[in-house]
């Protein structure tokens, strides 16, 4: 059975390592913070200027001056710190943030990513995504395997304007975990009950299947 958004977030949470500073994008990535594995200490950075982000506030305790990059009201944890946008992107560009998780509209088998613009239709802007993908050594894309029209989002080549080139390292979708390698998307894990055929059918780019592909353990 394909994963839901929470399933994707849970699987990505397994990628967290002790001591990581992590930037979570808007949408599914934000949910990752809810599933940190036991015994692992990580800190979440939000590019609008906070490190040590905590859960949403209790009702009535929201502070308009305390939001994350998705403009959501948040809280902070012990050891938190506030800073300006230039310092924030110094952390990102300077590779002090070890892991970036973000959504995508398309990913290519070269690791290119598109997620900020549909020409003539939608232009929300790239926000911090271009800085994040150009800098982080470790980028995980969290997304559905196909779009609303059922078309694959894992492509030979992106059709939309790019956010970054050759930067995506890993992709976690509702169907699979894949690694971007020199020759294409290497399948690492299947979602529970999802077949190789399901994944192949949903993947336009080159899918590399070597040996047994285990099911995810969530």
């Amino acid at each position, binding site marked *: 059975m394909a994963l839901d958004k929470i399933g994707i977030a849970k699987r990505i949470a397994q990628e967290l390592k002790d001591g990581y500073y992590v930037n979570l994008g808007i949408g599914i990535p934000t949910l990752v913070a809810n599933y940190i594995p036991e015994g692992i200490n990580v800190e979440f950075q*939000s*590019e*609008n*200027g*906070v490190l040590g982000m905590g*859960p*949403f*506030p*209790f*009702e*009535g*305790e*929201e*502070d*308009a*001056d*305390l*939001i*994350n*990059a*998705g*403009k*959501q*009201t*948040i809280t902070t944890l012990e050891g938190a710190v*506030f*800073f*300006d*946008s*230039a310092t*924030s*992107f110094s952390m*990102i*560009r300077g590779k002090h943030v070890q892991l970036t998780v973000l959504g995508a509209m398309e990913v290519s088998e070269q690791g*290119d990513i598109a997620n*900020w*613009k549909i020409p*003539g239709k*939608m*232009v*929300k*802007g*790239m*926000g*911090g*995504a*271009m*800085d994040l993908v*150009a*800098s982080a050594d470790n980028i995980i894309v969290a997304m559905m395997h196909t779009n609303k029209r059922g078309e694959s989002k894992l492509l030979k080549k992106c059709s939309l*304007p*790019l*956010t*970054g*080139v*050759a930067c995506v390292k890993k992709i976690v979708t509702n169907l699979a975990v894949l690694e971007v390698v020199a020759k294409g998307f290497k399948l690492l894990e299947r979602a529970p009950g999802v077949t190789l055929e399901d994944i192949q059918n949903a993947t336009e780019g080159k899918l590399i299947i070597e040996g047994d592909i285990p099911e995810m353990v969530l």
Partner: protein
Amino acid sequence: MINKEVNSIEDAIKGVDNKMTFMLGGFGLCGIPENAIKALSESGINGLTCISNNAGVDDFGLGLLLHKKQIKKMISSYVGENAEFERQMLSGELEVDLIPQGSLAERCRAGGAGIPAFFTPAGYGTEVAEGKEVREFNGQPHILESALEADFAFVKAWKGDTAGNLIYKGTARNFNPMMAMAGKITVAEVEHLFPAGELDPASIHTPGIFVQRIFQGKDYEKRIEQRTVRTKE
């Protein structure tokens, strides 16, 4: 001590004019100069270029200026919250220059710091890199980005003093410090204005040298865009 206090919003925005370039602090609606935006909206000036990470929402923040078509060009990183903005942009009424958020922050800082240009990896291989010089450093391609400056920068802080020193609250800091540096005339509005000497010199975020005018704002709405809460169990 050089006194930067002005006593009215009129004095604060004195000298603003059609076709000028403004920087406006804030991230979403967090930390925006509400008083200055309102006064600019009422001033009726137009043909403006506005440098701001976002463009407000339909009826608040820079949305007020967009609604009255005072803005000719926006330089931003993310404008997804504003339907009127999207309409004006797609119809061609509004020029838009979208810039990666980190490059926007660094370009403002560079403008204030006398650094005319710098290399960054952000945007390489994308539309953002078009027409820009590309150079490899440590085997990775980078693009050359230039400094941004403005005729006026409008910033908003939590506390300030008459010497122009500013302290921001929480994540309302965001772009305000860099824009304060990059304005030819920087106008700071604060929630609480103190006499010089009352703020801790080691805890000031924006040194007063970057601020030309300061005043205590009023009637802050401080709207929340995404009110997300949890319930006590």
